[in-house]
């Protein structure tokens, strides 16, 4: 049993357990931190802490929401440092994908700026639901609330984004 071997300290087993959730974890960290090095740090630290805490992980439970919750908290810790506020604009590569039109390009820049200003718990809710495409009950488990509560948080996050967008446009 891979989980039992990992609990017993088998690094290979834990590595195998982690492999399927590494990608969403990294995408979550990247979205939260906007910095590849910081995201790698956060995921690595989360992985080691998860391994330490694996004894508390119950057989049969889903690893992904558990690990994503640890990554999210690690990102929150990282974001408390002053360096994360350094925003990186102007890099077209970061926006990714083809730019359909001047208007959508501008909108996306504005939306990116609005995401930068969004409180972290709102950004986390949006990332889990819209970027990682987690089902709402799994979003709830990462956030530590009920499914209804998670749905509310996602809606509140969207609502919080809209005023930020409006401010950006007005400015």
């Amino acid at each position, binding site marked *: 049993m891979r989980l039992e071997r990992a*609990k017993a300290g088998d*690094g*290979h087993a*834990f*590595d195998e357990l*982690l492999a399927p959730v*590494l*990608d969403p974890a*990294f995408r979550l960290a*990247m*979205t939260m931190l906007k910095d*590849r*090095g910081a*995201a*790698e740090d956060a*995921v*690595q*630290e*989360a992985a*080691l*802490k998860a391994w*330490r*805490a694996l*004894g*508390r*992980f*119950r057989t*049969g*439970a889903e690893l992904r*929401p558990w690990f994503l*919750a*640890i*990554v999210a*908290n690690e990102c*929150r*810790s*990282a974001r*408390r440092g002053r360096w994360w506020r350094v925003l990186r604009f102007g890099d077209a590569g*970061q926006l*990714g*994908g083809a730019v359909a039109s001047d208007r959508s390009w501008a*909108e*996306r820049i*504005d*939306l*990116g700026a*609005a*995401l930068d200003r969004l409180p972290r*718990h709102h950004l986390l809710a*949006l*990332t889990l639901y*819209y*970027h990682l495409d987690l089902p709402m009950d799994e979003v709830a*488990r990462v956030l*530590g609330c009920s499914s209804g509560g998670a749905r509310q948080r996602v809606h509140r996050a*969207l609502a919080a*984004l809209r005023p930020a*967008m*409006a401010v950006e*446009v007005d400015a």
Partner: protein
Amino acid sequence: MTPDEREVRRALEARSGEVSPEFRARLSGALQDGRPSTNAMPAAAAAMAIILALGSVGILLMARGANRVSHQGPVIVTSPSPTPTIVQKVPIYVPLFNQLSAPSGNVVWAWVADGRLYRSTDFGNTWEERSQPPVPRVGNADFSFLNAQEGWFLIGGANQPQCFEGRAQIWHTTDGAATWRKVPIDGWNLSYTSDSVGGETCKQGISFTDPLHGYISAWGANRHPIIYRTLDGGLNWAGATLTDPPGFVTQTGTYLRPGPVSAFGSTLLVYAWSEQPGEWMPASVYIFRATDRGSTWSYLAKSFDIAFHTVTFLTTSRWLQIGNQASDQETTDAGKTWHPFTSDYVAAAGLPGVIAFGDELVGYSTNRGGIYRTVDGGAHWVKVKTPGT
């Protein structure tokens, strides 16, 4: 402008990125190096000694970098000796401590898993190493001190619900952990065995309120939790069950797991969180109270937040749930009502640290590779000097 969901997805995608093969390989390498030990206290001592000896600015910078993970590989010094000579590069950073006991505001004990026992009698400003019970390996353990001299260790007997640690022991010191005496337990078999009620019980969370009265929390995957109590310093033990609180039914795989008992005069408090199949986060955390030295327990309240399993009792009526800044909560009426509480304590990576209050205002916590202290009842926390350095 109101972005539609598609635009939000695009904007989030723009911030994201793929895992690089190099990072995957680096993380795998870190995992193959072995599970991170929680015993890094000697490492901290070694790092400081070497740093001072060399006086190297470069090493100082590297040591600073060691207090967070770096993909460039920070330097941490590891050694089993307090005067270490081995310097080893490891790509990880792990918390240093995992147990605290604060019998009063100024006296605090810190124990590192598999490692060392330290005592401070000046609010954590200075530390001295003390001996721990003379057993080959102090595995899962909890300890409780009454003051700077007298305390107990509960060793083994508790792990995950399976409780495969085997026989548990209780050790007692009255000379500030200079020497330890194994308590000849009678009347309660502390070894892990299935009992008549069904299912094994895991013991964890020892708490003594005076030289005679002590408590140990026990649970099992198919039974109600039990709070064992002794009236004679640990020789004899008897158990009292925590019955199901409103809305909760103990059944196979769904059970309550109690934390350690907190004592305030004749009032005892204990929290217990729910465990259920397939879930890693509790559905609820309940608080129980006893006013007869633990003969009987009754449900008192339900906690506000389930993000962390623990409830910190500062008095019989003021409790905190902190560590998750977005939802830190306080009650001042024994759980009847909860309200937001502002604290700068944030638990690392969703893993709750140990929080131990010596009195209503002064408390200590383990977090982020160090010990933190509050002198204002949990609102502000500052890192104190690391034991062993």
